[in-house]
C-alpha cells in the first residue's frame, strides 16, 4: 500500500486511537479542542461541525449531505472537496481514521 486515498462515501470517519475532545470548559463556546499525543488543535466553525460528525457511525456521504444542507448557499461540490481534503490532512497527521 502506498500513499493516501481520500475518504469514500461509505467511509466512516472517526478520531484516531488516542485522539479525543478536550474538556468543554477549557474553551469558549465557539471553540473546542482536539487533543492528540504531541499537541492539540482548536476547532471552530465548519471544521468543528465536521469533526463532531466524525463519530465512526455516520458515513462520509452522510456528513457531506448534512453539511451541504446546513450551508445551502455554498457550492455543494466545493463543500465536498474541502471536507475531503480536510479529513485527508487529518488522517495524514493520524488524528482521524476512515
Amino acid at each position, binding site marked *: *500500500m*502506498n*500513499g*493516501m*486515498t481520500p475518504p469514500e462515501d461509505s467511509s466512516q470517519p472517526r478520531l*484516531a*486511537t*488516542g*485522539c*479525543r475532545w*478536550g*474538556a468543554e470548559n*477549557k474553551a469558549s463556546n465557539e471553540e473546542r*479542542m482536539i*487533543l*492528540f*499525543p*504531541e*499537541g*492539540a488543535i482548536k476547532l471552530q466553525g465548519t471544521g468543528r461541525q465536521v469533526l463532531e460528525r466524525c463519530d465512526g457511525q455516520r458515513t462520509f456521504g452522510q456528513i457531506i449531505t448534512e453539511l451541504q444542507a446546513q450551508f445551502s448557499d455554498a457550492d455543494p461540490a466545493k463543500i465536498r472537496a474541502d471536507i475531503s481534503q480536510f479529513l485527508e490532512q487529518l*488522517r*495524514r*497527521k*493520524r488524528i482521524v481514521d476512515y
Partner: protein
Amino acid sequence: MIIPNPLALIAEITHRCPLHCVYCSNPLEMAAVSSELSTEEWIDVFQQCGKLGMLHAHFTGGEPLARPDLTELIAGACAAGLYTNLITSGIGLAEARLQALVDAGLDHIQLSFQDSREEAANWIAGAKAHAHKIELSRIIRGHKLAFTVNLVIHRQNIDHLAEMIAFIEQLSPERMEIAHTQYYGWALKNRAALLPTRAQLDTAVEAVAAAEKRLAGRIRVDFVVPDYYARFPKACMGGWGRRLMLINPTGKVLPCHAAEVIPGLSFENVRDWSLEFIWQQSSSFQRFRGEEWMPEPCRSCDQRAQDFGGCRCQALLLTGNPEATDPACSLAPAHHIVEAALAEANSSTEISQPVAATSFVQLQKRAGELWSYRTNPE
C-alpha cells in the same frame, strides 16, 4: 504584564532508570530517591495544571515505571483534565500494569527503542531490554491507546536507519519519532561517539523522506534533525518560559530539562509556591522570556520569532555564556565551536562494533574510552 498560561507539563517523576543509555539527556547530577515528590504532592500539581488550562502531562524520567504509584499519578492527571502521555523504556511494564494504566486514563504511550538489532540495542542501552520492548509492543496494540515508537539515532546506528524504520513499521504504532541525539547531559559527555558525519545524515534524511511517503495515512513519521547540522537553531521548548513547564523529581520547576546547568538561576519548588506564581513571577522563567535578553545577531534577526535565539543551555554548555546566540546557529559568533565538533566528526567514518557483556560493570569496562554509560542516582 500577564503571561499566557503554559500548554503542557513535563513531569520528570524520578531519575531512577533500569537503562543506561549513552545519549541520556538527564543531568549528570541526578535527584536522589529520598528527595522525590510524594504521590499527593504530584496530584496537587496536576490539579493546579488543570486550573491553569494546561492540556498535556508528559510523564518522563528516568523511567516513570520506577515509581510504584504511577497508576495513581496517571489517574490524578486524568482527573485534572490533562491528556496523559507516558514516555517509557517499557521496563517494568507487562499486561496487568498496562491494563491498570489504561483504566486510569492513560491516553498515549511512547516506547523508546535503541536499535532494530538486539545486540546493538542492548549495547547502547547498557541493558538487556530489546526483547522485552518487542513483546510489550504487541501487548500495547491490544489496548486502546495511542502508540508512538521513539528511536534515538546517532553515529553508531544511523547507517541502518531504513532497516530500523522497517522494524518499527512491524510494531504498528500510529506514529514513529526518529530523533537525533541532542547534546546535553550524558550525550554531551559522549558526543564524539554520537555525532554523525554529513554523509550519514544525508542518507538518513533520504530514508526518512521515503518512509514518510510510503507510510502516509498509516504511520506518522516525525523527524528531529541534529541541530549541529542545521542552518538555524531549534526553537528549544518552543521558547523559554513560553509553552512548557518541567518539574523535576524533587519538585523544582524548570523551563527545560537542562536549565539547572545555567549558573546564577535559582528555581522555585512546588513545595513552596503555586505553579501559577512560579510561571508568572519566577525570575528564572523571566530571565530569557521574550526578546529583551537577546544579543545581536538575534535581536535584529528575522528568525527570532521562530527560534527564540535557540537553546540557552546549549549556549552555556558550549560557550560558557547563557546569553550567547545558540552556537548551532550558522549566524552565531560562536558557531566555530560547532563547526569544530563537526570537523572532528567528519574526519573519520569510523564506527564501533557492539559489545556484549554478562554484567553492566563488565560492559562499562569493555566500552573503554568510547562512551560513559548513564548511571543511577543514590
